[in-house]
């Protein structure tokens, strides 16, 4: 399959995530949008890895066609840990200000 379709998909997902982060005020939605951007990048990484595996020069390497896949798994594990921390912060935020609206998070200014 042509690599361009993967790039278009990733770009679309990333842009949706980015716009979501910019326009939404609900912390959980923003968080989900960040995850969306992360996964868009992950997808692109796997796609490029596959594309590179097709070239003869790479075939000689001992880590042939496996390094990017391993990377992606790592990223997913780290993202899972990050989600737990992020969600914990949001829960604490809700407990303290009874809202998950990020516009209320402007105490540093005052």
């Amino acid at each position, binding site marked *: 399959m042509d690599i361009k379709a993967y790039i278009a998909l990733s770009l679309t997902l990333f842009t949706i995530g*980015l716009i979501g*982060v*910019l*326009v939404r*005020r609900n912390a959980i939605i923003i968080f989900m949008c960040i995850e969306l951007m992360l996964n868009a990048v992950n997808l692109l990484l796997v796609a490029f890895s596959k594309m590179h595996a097709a070239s003869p020069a790479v075939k000689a390497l001992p880590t042939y066609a496996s390094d990017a896949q391993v990377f992606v798994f790592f990223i997913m594990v780290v993202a899972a840990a990050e989600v737990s921390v992020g969600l914990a912060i949001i829960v604490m935020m809700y407990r303290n200000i009874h809202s998950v609206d*990020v*516009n209320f*998070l*402007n105490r*540093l*200014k*005052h």
Partner: protein
Amino acid sequence: MNNIVKLIWLIPFLPLIGFLINGVGRKLLSKTFSGIIGSAVVLGSFIISLLVFLQIKSGNVFNIHYFNFISIDSLKISFDYKIDQLTSLFLLIITGVGFLIHVYSTSYMHEEDDKDFAKYFSYLNLFVFSMLLLVMGGNYLIMFIGWEGVGLCSYLLIGYWYKNNNYTDAAKKAFIMNRIGDLGFLLALFWLIAKVDTVDYDQVFSAASLAKLTPVDISGITLLLFVGATGKSAQIPLYTWLPDAMAGPTPVSALIHAATMVTAGIYMIARSNALFSLAHNTQLVITIVGLATALLAASIAIKQHDIKKVLAYSTVSQLGFMFIALGTGNYVAAVFHVITHAFFKALMFLGSGSVIHAMGGEQDIRKMGGLHKHMKITSITFLIGCIAIAGIPGFSGFFSKDEILAGAYSHGVVFYAVALFAALLTAFYMFRLYIVTFTGKFRGTHEPEHHLHESPSAMTIPLIILAVLSIVGGYIGVPEALGGHHQLSAFLSPVVKSSVHHLTHDTEYMLMGLSTALVLIAIFFAWTRFKKYQPEGESKGFAKLLENKWYVDELYDFVIVKPIKSIAGFSNRIIEAKGIDGLVNGVGKAVNYSGRQLRWLQSGQVGAYVLLMVIGILLLFILKLFF
């Protein structure tokens, strides 16, 4: 002899110790203790000075090198003491009269608080230390250190009662006037260093270095040194601080503003006689300034009503006499007059202190009168002082003043006539002071009359000692015309080379007879004029001019103070307010304005930050891709 050399450093060091003890412990020490410490250290210095004097009398001169003080390139200034005949005489006066005044102060200042009392003695000891440094130094720089030190102590002690604004103003006036003179001294030092590369007395006065100086250098250096002397020794034009210095406690006036500090200028010129003898222009200037000061101050003293002011102007006038002697090359006579003047002027100041003490702080002689029957010792000793200063034969002032007059005569009859006239005024105003204060009826109210009493013995004993010295002090310099040998002149001859034309004995007899007769007439005139003294109303014409001190203070105020104040006011309003303030405030305002304009960037909204971040990233992309 070696033992004495080892002790010499103690002479100034003992008063310094006294200063430290009294200064540091002023809150802890009792009055008795600080008084004893203050007096004992000076007594110690006096005893060592006496031993040193005996050594010097037998022909030894001490040049003691302690350490290198400044060493820059070829200029080497060391910390030396030079104790010769001239220094040893000053040591005796400073520590001897100083000790008597310390003892007197223990009683005079007894009403002060403990801590002020100790403060007073610490200042007094610091003064003695500085003055000793001034006369003992082996080069001009050490002298300058002492010179500045005594100026500082004078300032501290004039402003001793610092809660009174007038007194602190008087202190500032004294300090500023002295600073003007000090500048002259300092410039003279720089000039000397530039030309001969040394400030050490022996090296400067050596033939080799004098040969390096052109006549212009010598005139310039001596004139600048003389400017320094006019500041310290209260000569025209810098004399106005001394009468105001009477704001200090009376013993201070006696010690600093009559007996010792004001003679520093005389000492300095007598010390530099090798230079001054070469500068005839400067000598003429000194003579004229001395004559003018002697006459002006004496004329002012005639119409003053404050007992201490009369004595202050008398001091200025007598210092003028000393400068006449210096200007006519009669250095021995100047030193002689310093010695006798120290005795009788300290005596009269302490006597006036005793009077003020008895009068409960009153200083106006119009409110005194008839004090003789209440305080006989003070009255008699004061009278001795008056006779001595007036120059009645047999008393110390006669010998020294006559020598000055004779020196003036040998330089010109006009000098002699003016100096003689000033001497007559001296006799007149001193006896006016005595007659108005001690004879006649008491003119004050009943309240102080009731309290009139003789002062305690701590005050009267110094008076008696000084009175005896005022009588016998002159016999160290009996002129040959009167069958004496003038021991002082012989004693000082290795250091001070007077250049006096010798008069015949007949001329000297004539001069002495003339001055004595005129002085007696002046005293008689004072007696007839003031024996039934009643305070007059407003004085008019010339008398008013004298009473207001020739309006010299007002003149200085108009010529110097007012213009400086208006320049300062201009700088304050225009340069300071508009210029410098505008610049500083402008910077502040610019920062403030730009801060307000940039404030919207920090909105505190998370969304806004993210948006800015995204815009930034996009910009970076664009930059990367297209440029």
